[in-house]
């Protein structure tokens, strides 16, 4: 999403499109990303339950991954994962 200039902002920064927050990719704030080791994962879903962004998704194979458009890299999933299947890896 190209950043608008001050002249292009709507008056009062009114957001006129419902649900447009999804266009704002908060994943750009991230300094670390969660990486799942499926060999250790027991598919308990505790990462899915604890993710404050709701960006952890379960695939058809039952394993989990984060939507990196919105994952802020907070590390809560890795902290809560008791089989230690999630590692936080530095973003380059």
């Amino acid at each position, binding site marked *: 999403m190209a950043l608008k200039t*001050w002249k292009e*902002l709507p*008056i*009062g*920064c009114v*957001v006129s499109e*419902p649900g447009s927050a999804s266009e704002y990719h908060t994943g750009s704030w991230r300094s670390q990303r969660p990486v799942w080791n499926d060999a250790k994962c027991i598919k308990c879903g505790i990462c899915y339950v604890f993710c404050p962004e709701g960006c952890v998704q379960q695939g058809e194979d039952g394993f989990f991954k984060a939507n990196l458009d919105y994952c802020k890299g907070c590390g809560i999933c890795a902290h809560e994962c008791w089989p230690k299947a999630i590692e936080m890896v530095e973003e380059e």
Partner: protein
Amino acid sequence: MGKRMGMEVAMAVAEAVGLCNIDMAAVYPITPQSHIAEHLSDLVANGEIDAEFVTVESEHSAMSAVIGASGTGARSYTATSSQGLMLMHELLPIASAMRLPICMAIANRAVSGPLNILNDHTDIMPQRDSGWISMFVENGQEAIDMSIIAFKIAEHKDVMLPVNINIDGFQLTHMVEPFEMPTQEEVNQFLPPFVPHATLHPAKPVTMGAFAMSDYFAEIMKAKDEALKNSKKVILDVWDDWAKIFGRTYKPVETYMADDAEILMLTMGSMGETAQVAIDELRAKGIKAGLVKLRLWRPFPLEEIKAVLKNTKKLIVTDRAISFGGPGGPVFSEIKSALYAEAQRPLIYNYIYGLGGRDVPVPDFVGMFEKVLADTAGKLADSYEFWGVRE
């Protein structure tokens, strides 16, 4: 032609607001604004105005309620003073950032502590940077006129900003003054219906007051600054519209006997009328004294101030507030800053006076002029003094 009448100014302000087809008011009573709150609620309760009067539990709630109401497209009004304004403080920049054309009367009163209910400008000065259009009035007629004018300025499509009107508490609010009250027909002719830039409505959902991070915050602040600066053009136009219908002319900076003056004094609000009498006395003695009255505080009328002050040798800036531990009164600092880059600048003196309702009669104004005139070496310039304080 309006009706010539006499009434307490606070009640007259409520009457004037009642002519403006407001949709709602949320007002929490506080001395010396209370008579605006009381009379406006009377007008609503008596069915004289078709509006909602929301009896809120605090000024924080009053400002929150008018923000919400204005967001739905309602013409919204409030009034406050002193501690009430301080309690509203955190919401003022939100109202302006959301570009909601709320109008508010401020019955200026000293801020605690110690507790004091009387008049000075220590309540409005801390609100300076909240992004509101801010103007001062000198008498009851101006308070009435500006209460109506404020809606047209605020709601103009090129402005969409909140406006506060500073009416000196007691000195103006509690005076019974003669004035001309506009008729409903005249106000209808002057004030068009409110067309909001966006409205909160379930049929077309929008978000107001959303979140912004470092990637947008500066652009949003820049847009707000430009909006406030650009509002001056509309303010001038609307004052012209007013003059055409009502014959009373308003300017951002007004003067009295200033054209040939060698020494000028700058006042804001009701002190201007007393200072004028002092000017007359000094002129009678052959002293070329004059007066500059700053009506528009925000947007600051930089060009007008420079033009008015360009030939004067000495300028006395009067302040009714203090910037504790700072370079002087807030008005003094702004005027000095405005003139800094000018090739020809007057010596600038600053008197802080009339605090907490302290009376400032004509001889005090004459005394300020005489003290500055006697300072031939300019030793007292560029500094401030508490006028009349007991040593």
